[in-house]
């Protein structure tokens, strides 16, 4: 099965999904590093996964 593709909702990058990807799996965008949740599979839809805001404390 050729790898699935979708686009990152944050930076529009093309995101390659592993062949065995499953719904609600979290993948990372290679360009902007955002954690993305697979909301649907056919066609694949990605939404930003809830991530706790990292506090640099600066």
């Amino acid at each position, binding site marked *: 099965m050729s790898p699935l593709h979708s686009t990152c909702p*944050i930076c529009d990058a093309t995101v390659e999904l592993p062949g065995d990807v499953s719904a609600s799996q979290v993948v990372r965008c290679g360009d902007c590093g955002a954690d993305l949740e697979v909301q649907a599979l056919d066609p694949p839809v990605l939404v930003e996964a809830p991530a706790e805001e990292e506090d640099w404390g600066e």
Partner: protein
Amino acid sequence: MSAVPVAIVGASGYAGGELLRLLLAHPGVEVRQVTSESRAGEPAAAAHPNLRRRTTLTFSRMDDLHPCDTAFLCLPHGRTVEVIDGVLARSERVIDLSADFRLRRAEDYVRWYGFAHPRPDLLGAFVYGIPELHREAMRGARLVSSAGCNATAVILALHPLFKHGVADTRCTVVEAKVGSSEGGAGVSPASHHPVRANCVRSYKPTGHRHTAEMLQELGLSGDSRIHFSATAVDLVRGILATCHVFLNNRVDEKQIWKLYRQEYGAEPFVRIVKERDGAFRYPEPKLLAGTNFCDIGFELDGDGNRLVVMSALDNLGKGAAGQAVQAFNLMHGLDETAGLGFAGLHPV
């Protein structure tokens, strides 16, 4: 393909030393000669301790330059133009790391460097040394004028915006934080360690010469401006240029991503670095020491039309020797990344 014989003229300085390190490890090159008037007769490692037991080359004088395929010139500004004919007589190709042939118009030398260029006839003969802008012209070229380090960082940062007309060309403000090796190997009261260490020194708030190249290569003229300032920080290698650009009309982040991806997505040495978390979300100079990378990131100012573009590189790498080797590879039809595979160190 037999190794290309090259020479480095003025090889005892920092750019010359970085070039020597890269070329000694380059699969397609044989370094035949290194010249230095001040260190003639000394072994190369005397000036470059990292090259101990790595080369037995000793510095010769420029007058003794033997014929070779490519000569890399690392001479002080104003000196190259005096010796260029002698070098051209003995070398097929020349890659000049000085500023003597970067600008296309003689009057710009009067304005920015305060001297009447003695060889205006040669000014158009050199290809300006940023491969990402002049790749085709460099293939098979004989003469390349390597770009300045600050100019490389700023030009690569801003090129996509001005090329596509999304930014106002009259009010760009750029502040470059720079390391001490930019001043070269020459000692001065300001480079004395107790004076230079831990400094955050506004050493060139206005009138930096590299602005001339930025305007030229970004195609800006008339009342266009690059308001450039340089601040020396506690680094030996590295530049971080923070560019404040004012957009002509509203855009969103995705459009900016698209613009930079379109220009640099396929480039081997320009990386877009803008990440959601981690300590290295934006471009960071120390990660690039010894590499040929220019990392570019950006952030859109929510309430206005300001876009902040951050660009980092190693002033001796992509800002000098690395980019000269990249040009050399193009001039000889070699793999553009040959000899430039170092990934950089972390932590460092």
